């Protein structure tokens, strides 16, 4: 069941197009990552989704309503069904944690008594019950963001939008906040769209990735599709490289693209799912009496699926037989170049 249906969305600022013909759907319970270089239009897209920016044309269908064409009164009502988590938290500094979380409920017209019960429940969910009477200035970044999440969840939204929600946080708080979002997604079945420039976040978290480049949606699919594709647009490749194993500097310096006899071949392989759990390296050595040495990378979870992304050196020429074996066993095999061997 699709929760959100974006159709041909266009937007421009002062004549400069910022969003060009964006169309995509989001299913209930999905976690969708939105990535792209700075200035690509990610924030503008997210702001359009919650009606903060009125697009020039196109439709944003959320719960049978077109956010893009609603009038103020209906838009205000519809916004109660959308939660937005900000990079810089945007908490009211002169209000306590409780008052911050209660504000959306107050706006939605809840009675003081019902508000109190709901706030207690939300603070419990984000693990901040004991901080209920503190002011934002007395909280750490990670705690502030958890207040931001509790506030965004107050009205039980059908869609949660996060714009760089972890970019202002230290790695440990980032993990806590992501785990919390992950939990909420699992337990409440909440649909989440999340902008980030940290590919690691996408890798661990997103079931689907949308890539924006200069206002155009250039990719809509799994993170694994991106990892196992040898030719990505340069912008995507640059983002991907941040989270992928890279060649150690001493190898990078001697790397050449010309095949030379007695030099080792440097290859990148990606294995996904069941194949990621085979004894790939020892099999390779056994079948071809070629020594495969791991120089970078290893195993991790990508959107919950076991994935191996690694760079190897092989001390044997890449014969057709080895090539065929490698392409059968792996989801991606790329020759990066050649380095002097240590025979």
């Amino acid at each position, binding site marked *: 069941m699709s929760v959100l249906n974006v159709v041909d969305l266009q937007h421009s600022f002062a004549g400069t197009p910022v969003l060009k013909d964006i169309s995509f759907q989001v299913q209930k319970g999905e976690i969708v990552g939105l990535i792209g270089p700075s200035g690509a239009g990610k924030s503008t897209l997210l702001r359009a989704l919650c009606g*903060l920016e009125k697009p020039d044309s196109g439709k944003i269908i959320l719960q049978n309503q077109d956010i893009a064409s609603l009038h103020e009164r209906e838009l205000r009502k519809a916004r109660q069904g959308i939660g937005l988590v900000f990079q810089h938290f945007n908490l009211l*500094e002169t209000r306590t944690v409780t008052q911050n979380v209660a504000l959306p409920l107050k706006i939605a017209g809840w009675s003081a008594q019902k508000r109190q019960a709901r706030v207690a429940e939300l603070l419990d969910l984000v693990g901040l019950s004991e901080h209920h009477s503190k002011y934002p200035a007395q909280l750490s970044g990670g705690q502030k963001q958890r207040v931001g999440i509790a506030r965004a969840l107050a009205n039980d939204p059908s869609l949660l939008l996060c714009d760089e929600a972890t970019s202002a946080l230290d790695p440990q708080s980032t993990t806590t906040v992501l785990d919390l979002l992950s939990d909420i997604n699992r337990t409440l079945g909440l649909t989440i769209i999340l902008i980030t420039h940290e590919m690691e976040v996408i890798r661990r978290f997103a079931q689907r990735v949308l890539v924006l480049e200069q206002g155009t949606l250039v990719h809509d699919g799994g993170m694994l599709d991106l990892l196992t594709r040898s030719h990505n647009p340069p912008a995507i490749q640059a983002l991907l490289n941040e989270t992928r194993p890279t060649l150690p500097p001493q190898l990078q310096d001697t790397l050449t693209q010309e095949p030379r006899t007695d030099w080792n071949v440097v290859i990148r392989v990606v294995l996904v799912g069941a194949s990621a759990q085979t004894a790939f390296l020892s099999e390779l050595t056994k079948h071809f009496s070629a020594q495969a040495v791991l120089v970078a990378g290893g195993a991790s979870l990508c959107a919950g699926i076991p994935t191996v992304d690694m760079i190897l050196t092989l001390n044997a020429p890449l014969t057709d037989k080895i090539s065929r074996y490698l392409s059968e066993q792996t989801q991606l095999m790329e020759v990066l170049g050649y380095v002097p061997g240590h025979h």
Partner: protein
Amino acid sequence: MSRVIINLVLQATEQTLIMVLAAGAISLLVGLPLAVIVFSASRKELYGSPWIARPLSLLIDALRAVPFIILLVILLPVTRWIVGTSLGTTAAIVPLSIAAIPYYARIAEIALRGVDTGLIEAVQVMGGSRWMVICYGVIPEALPSLISGLTVTLITLTGASAMAGAIGAGGLGDLAIRYGYQRFNTQVMVAVVIVLIALVGLIQAIGNFAARRAAPQHG
């Protein structure tokens, strides 16, 4: 110090307090809404009506540009029309208010402008109306600055009220000029200056306390 002088100073203090507090209250009651109107009209996230914001803003600046002593004279007929007389303490409240309203309106508008746009958007995304954005978001967040601004306005009014002596308003400044300056009565002058310093200090202290209470995270 003679009883006469003490009585004179006490009476003048009362007159100054009446002028400052009355004009201060009026500047708050009129200036703050004016600031909210200019602020919300100039923000495209709110009303986005520059044709309201600009002329109002211009009017505020124009009024602030007129020296108080000139305002006092220009406003004589208006004062007479409102209070029935153009002389005395009550009459002085009119020009003082007219001077203080744009003064506070500008200070308050700057305070409102200081609130992060992100907070406006946060309240909007919750489904808040423009009115809710202002009442739940902007004003509470700007409250410490709004209070400090009012403190500054009251202190400026204390100074300006001295000039109101020119229309027989009385007050401390007037007393200092008449006895201290024109009659070389040093005692009165010193007494008035001490009372003025104490008064300004008191206003500032109360203002600081209130501003700190409004920004509880620093308390």
